[in-house]
């Protein structure tokens, strides 16, 4: 009751007051008799009045609620948001139904939550007061959800089948009808065995015994029989159906036709095998060709050399020049063939994987190029390098190739500086840089630099153009990657990433 400045005579009720009191009593009775929980809230959001349904629904006694903020009846996570909604409603009061589309939740005194639907009405008689009618819609939401699920099941393209533990089919959706050719009328009540190929036991029921405690199995690829007797490849996922006591009483399976997938897989496997075969043949060809080419070439070299040594007096100046060309050509071809042989051998012979101390490998590689390095006054520095698993001989050849390149492609007049830098990436991979201060490789040509016999610098630098091809094959045989970048001074930065641990299987 509010003080409104009107005088009151004690003992003699003001007729207006009496009318107001009657109206209020009538209002409270109305609230009390409402079938749903009713909460009257004032403009500040404080609870002014609740009915017995509210007490029952939320588990509070009404004295506990009166004067408290209405947000007490909401889950914590919704409180702030609700206060804003309430302010908005206060500014735009009108009758509203809430909860039909929104997933509104109420919170009981014991902290448990339940689905609610709320309708709000401003109370005309008392400005600022709002009546909220709250209904527990737990059952209805569940029913809606069940209907929705049923609709999803019915319309699913996947075959969904439920059966008892004895294998009696209890549910059969459209997807199942489409996949297996039986209508639901034909199969409900029949045993699931009608779908099994002759002689095959039902792995589903067997699997069910194993999924105790786990309610959904991993997908299983298997074969089923259609109504017309044809076989179909399917992928199955099994879920246990439990009764109210948690006892497994049946199983539902979702199955999918994987005929297409199987076809694609088979085609892919065949194609992969073809590729591997033709790759192997190509390598074999390169090996045999270069091996057999060596023989006659060696004879050409040997006898032309003998001609040059012993019969030089019998030919004139021009003849001697010709002989020189033959010797040069044969020598160069010899180098190319040896390079080709080396390349075809990497990956052709099996990798011999052991734990390898890269520090030692690099030290040995440095010794191998020391003569070349001293000739150009090179300086090679290196980080401490890890022990990795790999083929020691191949890794040695990798570093010899890279160091020899770094020393060869220096800038005129500048002694080569090569640094080997190691970092451990967060994924455990080893990243190794071999950086130099040489002439580098234009970004446009970096990928081509790995091509066999590619010599980006023509005849300015000696070589066969095979070094980086060999390097790449070695790194890839170790399941790693090799790329080219630019070092700070414009030189080349060869970046090698090798996996942390290498199992024999990963290595090709």
């Amino acid at each position, binding site marked *: 009751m509010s003080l409104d400045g009107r005088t009151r005579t004690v003992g003699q009720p003001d007729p207006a007051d009496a009318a107001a009191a009657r109206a209020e009593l009538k209002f409270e009775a109305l609230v009390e008799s409402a079938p749903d929980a009713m909460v009257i809230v004032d403009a500040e959001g404080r609870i002014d009045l609740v009915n017995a349904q509210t007490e029952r629904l939320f588990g509070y006694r009404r004295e506990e609620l009166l004067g408290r903020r209405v947000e007490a009846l909401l889950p914590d996570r919704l409180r702030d948001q609700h206060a804003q909604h309430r302010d908005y409603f206060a500014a735009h009061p009108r009758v509203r139904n809430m909860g039909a589309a929104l997933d509104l939740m109420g919170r009981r005194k014991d902290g448990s939550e339940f689905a609610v639907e709320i309708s709000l009405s401003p109370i005309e008689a008392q400005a600022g007061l709002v009546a909220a009618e709250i209904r527990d819609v737990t059952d209805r939401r569940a029913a809606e959800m069940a209907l929705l699920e049923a609709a999803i099941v019915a319309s699913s393209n996947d075959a969904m089948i439920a059966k008892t533990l004895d294998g009696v089919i209890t549910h059969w959706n459209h997807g199942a009808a489409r996949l297996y050719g039986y209508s639901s009328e034909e199969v409900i009540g029949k045993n699931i065995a009608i779908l099994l190929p002759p002689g095959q036991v039902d792995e589903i029921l067997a699997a069910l015994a194993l999924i105790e405690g786990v309610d959904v199995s991993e997908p299983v690829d298997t074969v089923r029989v259609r109504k017309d007797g044809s076989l179909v490849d399917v992928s199955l996922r099994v879920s246990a159906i439990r009764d109210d006591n948690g006892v497994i009483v049946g199983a539902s399976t979702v199955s999918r036709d994987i005929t297409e997938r199987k076809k694609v897989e088979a085609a892919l496997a065949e194609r992969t095998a073809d590729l591997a075969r033709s790759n192997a043949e190509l390598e074999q060809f390169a090996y045999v060709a270069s091996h057999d080419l060596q023989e006659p070439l*060696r004879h050409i070299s040997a006898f032309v050399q003998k001609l040059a040594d012993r019969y030089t007096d019998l030919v004139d100046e021009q003849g001697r020049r010709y002989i020189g060309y033959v010797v040069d050509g044969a020598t160069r071809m010899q180098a190319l063939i040896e390079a080709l042989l080396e390349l075809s051998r990497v990956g052709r012979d099996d990798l011999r994987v052991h734990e390898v101390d890269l520090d030692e490998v690099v030290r040995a590689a440095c010794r191998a190029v020391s003569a070349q390095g001293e000739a150009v006054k090179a300086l090679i520095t290196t980080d401490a390098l890890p022990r990795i698993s790999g083929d020691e001989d191949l890794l040695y050849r990798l570093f010899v190739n890279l160091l020899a390149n770094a020393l060869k492609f220096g800038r005129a007049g500048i002694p080569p500086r090569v640094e080997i830098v190691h970092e451990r990436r967060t994924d455990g991979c080893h990243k190794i840089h071999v950086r130099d201060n040489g002439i580098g490789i234009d970004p446009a040509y970096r990928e081509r630099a790995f091509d066999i016999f590619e010599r980006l610098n023509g005849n300015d630098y000696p070589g066969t153009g095979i070094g980086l091809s060999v390097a790449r094959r070695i790194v890839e045989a170790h399941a790693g990657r090799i790329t080219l970048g630019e070092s700070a001074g414009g030189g080349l930065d060869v970046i090698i990433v090798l996996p942390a641990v290498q199992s024999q299987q990963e290595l090709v």
Partner: protein
Amino acid sequence: MKTTPLIARPLLVLLIEDSEPDIVLTEEAFDDASIAVDLVVARDGAAALDILGSAARGERPIPELILLDLNLPRIDGLEVLDNIKSRNELKAIPVIVLSSSRSPLEKADAYACHANSFITKPLDSEEFLETVRGIEHYWLTIVRLPSRS
């Protein structure tokens, strides 16, 4: 320019090789190194086994050195090597395997069959001459073969 041969009597060498140019190169390599050899050539594995068989039976002198090309028609070099090293009469003869391949596997195979030395062609290399001189020294100063003493 030839130096005086180290020994008066030539070394009896069986060369098992099918390639004519390689036969010529081998002969000349011995010439160049001033090593006197009595060179018997078998042009395939079967011919080599014939010669070795009659040597084992005492029908002809046992070679003091065998140069064996691995890449032979029909019966391949490793089989010939295996045959030599499994016969008591022949297994003491040093065998130098000649190969045009630098494959480490071929080398390993050859040593697994008890080759005494493995040399990559061409044969006019220092390596070849060193090897032959070593073997020559072995035969002349350490071992005396009964059949030729």
